């Protein structure tokens, strides 16, 4: 069980923000790709159909090199268990006892897994790929169906970012999207700070704002620094929904503005807020855990109707990817959105993403610990095209 959150003793050092061993082969990084999407994928041999694990370069039945990552059945049977009580690894050491098992997967191979407390040898299990604090894909063996205690399993919680009991900053509360994110997170048990740029300017919903309003203008370094000085030490999750989506072929000033509100806004968060989160990234069950960025799918596959926004979101995306290793153990969640149902996308036909859709998708990603999500049919479709063949998708 996870104890309720209590004020921490300010005289104690936080538990160090360590990560489990992060070294992996290139092939094994495929596990992280699948885990980031919430899928259970392993290498399957194109020639003989064998499912291979651990990840490798050639099939261990027919030796051909045609191994392809595919979704595979998630069932298995536990064959052995242990409880590690003494670990050599600085990350695991304070987290023992830690359950480990061996599982014979229904799809063939045997895997060493993180073993849920309720499982014993002979039991059926459901396998899932999760991102650990090193950002690598690891296999968790769970009970066949969800149990009430699962969200509080300590090992599993290391791979998720459940907002319950945590403090979240939603960076742009001036839009219905930001306000819905805040309401949804509060309903999920979080405490929310709602960032407001130029709060003296009227905006919809200003009379019934959820959460605690804070003045935050991410296009202004000074404003970001002041806000961070006030709350960064208390924030566990940042949901950055500030971004520019203006259409058309703008002048250079507009292009600059798009960069300010999207790329440089994220850069300011990284500079002023993220070090304080990262330092508390290992601090118990309510550790600081995630930086969510809501980005246009046009940042991945540029949209000719939105050239400046495409460039600004691509810049933000590249920055997040580049920061990923240095910000561990935090999760860097990218929520790719299709057109939002807002003023910037008036000219586009449906389907568009509603505030409720975005909020629910972000909450789910946090609860599952997924780093790569697509929100809305168009973003999902575009992402699927990109996964299939990025080069063709970019050309079209």
């Amino acid at each position, binding site marked *: 069980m996870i104890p309720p959150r209590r004020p921490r003793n300010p005289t104690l050092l936080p538990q160090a923000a360590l990560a489990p061993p992060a070294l992996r082969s290139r*092939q094994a990084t495929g596990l992280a790709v699948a885990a980031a999407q919430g899928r259970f994928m392993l290498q399957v041999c194109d020639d003989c159909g064998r499912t291979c694990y651990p990840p490798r370069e050639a099939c261990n039945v027919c030796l051909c090199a045609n191994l392809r990552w595919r979704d595979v059945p998630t069932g298995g049977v536990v*064959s052995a268990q242990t409880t*590690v009580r003494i670990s*050599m690894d600085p990350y695991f050491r304070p987290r*023992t006892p830690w359950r*480990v098992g*061996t599982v014979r997967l229904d799809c063939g191979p045997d895997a060493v897994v993180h073993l849920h407390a309720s499982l014993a040898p002979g039991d059926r299990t459901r396998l899932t790929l999760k991102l650990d604090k090193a950002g690598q894909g690891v296999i968790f063996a769970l009970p066949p169906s969800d149990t009430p205690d699962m969200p509080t399993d300590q090992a599993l919680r290391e791979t998720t970012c459940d907002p319950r009991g945590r403090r979240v900053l939603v960076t742009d509360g001036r839009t219905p999207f930001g306000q819905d994110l805040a309401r949804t997170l509060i309903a999920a048990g979080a405490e929310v700070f709602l960032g407001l740029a130029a709060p003296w300017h009227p905006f919809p919903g200003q009379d019934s704002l959820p959460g605690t309003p804070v003045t935050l203008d991410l296009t202004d370094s000074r404003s970001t620094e002041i806000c961070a000085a006030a709350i960064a030490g208390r924030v566990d999750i940042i949901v950055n929904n500030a971004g520019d989506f203006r259409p058309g072929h703008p002048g250079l000033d507009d292009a600059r503005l798009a960069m300010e509100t999207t790329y440089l806004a994220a850069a300011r968060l990284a500079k002023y807020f993220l070090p304080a989160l990262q330092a508390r990234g290992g601090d118990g069950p309510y550790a600081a855990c995630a930086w969510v960025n809501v980005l246009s799918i046009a940042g991945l596959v540029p949209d000719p109707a939105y050239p400046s926004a495409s460039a600004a979101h691509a810049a933000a995306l590249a920055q997040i990817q580049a920061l990923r290793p240095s910000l561990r153990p935090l999760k860097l969640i990218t929520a790719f959105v299709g057109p939002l149902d807002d003023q910037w996308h008036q000219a586009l036909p449906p389907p568009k993403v509603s505030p409720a859709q975005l909020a629910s998708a972000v909450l789910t990603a946090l609860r599952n610990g997924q780093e790569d999500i697509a929100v809305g049919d168009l973003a999902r479709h575009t992402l699927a095209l990109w996964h299939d063949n990025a080069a063709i998708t970019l050309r079209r």
Partner: protein
Amino acid sequence: MRQGYEGIVVAAPVTVPYERYSIHGAHGWIGRALHGLLRAAGLKPADLDGACLSSFTLGADTAVGLTQHFGLSPRWLDHIPMGGAAGVVALRRAARAVQAGDARIVACAAGDTNAPDSFRHTVAGFSRFAIDASVPYGSGGPNAAFALLTDAYMRHTGITRADFGRICVAQRANARQFPHALLRQPLSLDQYLSARMVSDPIALFDCVMPCAGAEAVLVMHEATARDLGLAYAHLRGAIERHNAYPEDPVQLRGGWAMDCAELYAQAATTPAGIGLLQTYDDYPVIIALQLEGLGFCAPGEAKDFIRAHDLRLEGDFPHNSSGGQLSAGQAGAAGGYIGLTDAVRQLIRTPLGPQIPGLQRALVSGFGMINYDRGLCSGAVILEAA
């Protein structure tokens, strides 16, 4: 039927006394072992025209770099990265080289150093599959990997921790008579059973203690040994097998069963003809697998065998004469030689502790390399007194 090992002998067993931590590199430990061989056999470095070396802690070096390091110019060289199977496999390779005339005198040596925290680094980077798929899971290291095997084996056979404890207690009794053993305090079954859990069901006294050390022997023709005036033991049979039974969900057997009939046929003997059994003993469950795989008892019946026999040097079934790695310490790849060198000492009647009276044949078994979820290398040799 493949060719036998007629005329091949093993001589000059050398153990460089182990240390818990060493300020010297693996090169230094292997160098001391080779020097020990030269002194024991009255040879000059140039007489070693073959070398077969094993180590985990040479950094960027292999056996190749060691030739320059030690000023050797062998015409036959092998590097055997097989951990606990290194000694057995080295004997096979060296014997064939001598039989074929590729080398006259082969130095087989293994050695490793140990510094605080160096074992963790060895484990963390042990193999690609370990890095990708076992180290990130709790990092219990070999303790956790063998705990999974032990858990499955206990469920499968009904063997108890007390049975494993009998093995460990008997080996400690042997170690108390072996001058180089690092762990020589008395160990009782009660102490074994009440020790703290490390990774269930593996407890403290199931684990070996990493240390620095080196072991070595010479392999040559019987005639060469006679010319040099060396005492020797005959190599009568040898087997090795890698990645046996890959479809087993958990390792409940090693590769010995696939080949042990051939081993006994080569040596013209049976398990009943073995007077000393030297198993690879990291961890006790692997000893059980060897008792079964090498035909000393039926699969799943090691527990009955252990209960029925006294495994001490002076017992009815002498086993791991030096106390094994469980009591003498695990000096990295030298752990793959510890049973071999002491078996040769017993067979040529130069023991460091008590002599097993009338010993004619010893079986030395090797097991190594938990590449992912199981040990991949298994092998065994039968040695006979001259």
